[in-house]
């Protein structure tokens, strides 16, 4: 039986490898004296609610889940903190791709066009790029048509499949533009989903940050501190932890920062994406 005092992390199972990742971290933490366990959720909303219900101590949150938690906390008069993030979670951008041979030259040219995005709740492939286009004066659904590619709602776009489908739709001519995270621009080029020279970037969004480990006020301070120290101490030169870093896709952990969520927060304000969830989750937590 596990000791009851373990520090419990919540994570969303967007892929089967998530089990291998957190099993690996568990043994790393236990080796270093932090009793640790984890719980997997099928979607971020359930994880955020479980966090406020006190079922987990720390959450591995998507940027959208972070903002959901931040807004619920604000409604409840509580505080959230971003503890740590990956080096690869910082300064991402999204790109709006068009076909090279097309006549679209600037964001304003998207008026009246069909724009492919990811899942409804994907920060990188939907919310941030749509807000960016809206900043340019074009309102989604009114000034241009939005085509969603991804049925895995609740995963906050962690699953790559939707963006790949959007890229294919762009090549086929089913849409006039496609939005995706910059790392997929490279990936799709290298795997030839987007043949060389077939597409070009119409515009980049400003840089933004991605996931973080989130805690609420009242989290066991000693364990949070130890968790942070142990993450920051993980070195890529250590053969015992290198496979974990490789699996989780980073070279080193960085302290959490919250300055990189402004673009997404503005998108949520504009589209009201999480208003209902925040309202009901706050109410349920109070009850």
């Amino acid at each position, binding site marked *: 039986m596990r000791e009851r005092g373990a520090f419990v992390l919540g994570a969303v199972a967007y892929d089967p490898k998530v089990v291998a990742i957190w099993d690996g971290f568990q043994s790393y933490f236990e080796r270093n004296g932090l009793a640790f366990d984890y719980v997997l959720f099928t979607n971020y909303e359930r994880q955020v609610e479980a966090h406020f219900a006190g079922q987990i101590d720390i959450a591995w949150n998507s940027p959208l889940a972070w903002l959901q938690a931040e807004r619920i906390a604000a409604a409840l008069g509580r505080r959230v903190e971003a503890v740590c993030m990956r*080096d*690869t979670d910082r*300064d*991402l*951008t999204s*790109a709006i791709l068009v076909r*090279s041979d097309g006549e679209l030259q600037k964001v304003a040219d998207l008026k009246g066009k069909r724009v492919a995005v990811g899942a409804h709740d994907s920060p990188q492939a939907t919310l941030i790029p749509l807000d960016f286009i809206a900043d340019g004066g074009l309102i989604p659904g009114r000034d241009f048509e939005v085509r969603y590619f991804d049925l895995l709602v609740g995963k906050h776009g962690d699953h790559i499949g939707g963006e790949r489908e959007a890229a294919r739709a762009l090549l086929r001519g089913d849409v006039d533009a496609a939005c995706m995270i*910059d*790392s997929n*621009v*490279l990936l799709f*080029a*290298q795997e*030839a989903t*987007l043949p*060389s*020279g077939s597409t*070009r*970037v119409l515009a*980049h969004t400003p840089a933004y940050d991605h996931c973080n480990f989130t805690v609420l006020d009242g989290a066991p301070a000693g364990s949070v501190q130890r968790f942070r120290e142990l993450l920051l101490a993980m*070195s*890529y*030169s250590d*053969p*015992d932890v*290198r*496979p974990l870093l490789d699996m989780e*896709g*980073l*070279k*080193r952990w960085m302290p959490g920062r919250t300055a990189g969520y402004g673009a997404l927060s503005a998108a949520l304000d504009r589209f009201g994406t999480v208003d209902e969830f925040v309202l009901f989750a706050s109410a349920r937590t109070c009850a």
Partner: protein
Amino acid sequence: MRLDLGDLGFDEGAHLLVKRASRQLSLGEEMHVTGNAPELFTHLRVWCRSEGSAFRLESGRGGDASAAIIRSAAESDRWAGAESCGGARGSEPAAVVEQPPRTWGLAARGATVEVGAPEYGFTLVDKTEVWSAQAPRFYAQGAAAQWDPQTAIPWDAPCDVPDDVEDAIVQIMTYLIENETAALMVPSRFIAQLHPHFREVMQVLALQAADEARHIEIFTRRALLKRDKLGLSTSGGQASLKTLIEEPDYAVASFLLSVLGEGTFLNLLRFIEMHASDPITAAVARFAAQDEARHVAFGLAHIGEHLERNPAARSRLAAGVRRRSDALRHTAGLNAEVFDALIILAAGSWEHAAIRRGFQRVMQLTRDMDEGRQKRLARLGFDQREAMELSGLHTRNFM
């Protein structure tokens, strides 16, 4: 440092140039990258992020964009503790280490191995036990001596053998196939347990197994030349082979199989070649014997070096022979049908005088086998009394 990628893009391998150039950078030094491939800087930014390298877009003079990147320590971190796993050339004295770590795994000997590789379950990891400095030479010899069963044996040569002598040949072939199967399985089993660091030993054993595969083929073809059915397999013969197959100690198994068993088989195969009344039987025996001579020589080399490094192993080898003899005490040993078949082969007919001659030849064969075993035991440094004793305890099944 500056790097111009020209029109080479990341979807065409540009990362290779960036990697190569950034290896020249000292830690913290900036490299300025230019190029005009479509979306170059989008790709470069993502690539740098995933490599852990810093990336900054610069607006260059004259409108040409460039990016400043700083190499990350990740690559050197990954290889920091890596170790070189011995030397590639088996002929060099220090190439093969005493106890290669199991985490070197399947890495080619002489490669640089990343720390953190999984640990394999190899059980044969002691140089003293498995290595022979002559393995490279035996491998080369064995590889050069591979022959094609189809063309080596004169399958179409005239084969006028009296019916009852043909029966005897089929019985002998049946027995040989069974024994060759044991000779294939023993090295195969140890290949799978051997640390591949001892590459040339692994290769010699693999060739040995391939040799036995051919022996099985040619003996089967000779048996089926004029018959549709093979001869008899006795439980005594199988009991003897089972003790050989199940011997867990590699050096003891190699001693029992190659030095004693295949050594004895050399006499047997030469006897068959000499007394065969058809050229096909003579040829299959000759080609098998040629391979067996190499198997015996390697067994002698391996066990000789093993004893040199670990003289105490001599009593373990002797105990292995005694243990096997005890286990077989209540079995018949050699298949009586085989013994009789050898007499008929050597007689060539059922004339009384011929049978008498055949019988004497088989008696002489068993004396030659005994003498051969004693000579090989003496070469390994066993004294005369022990050589006599151990040779006498060797299985009557020959292999």
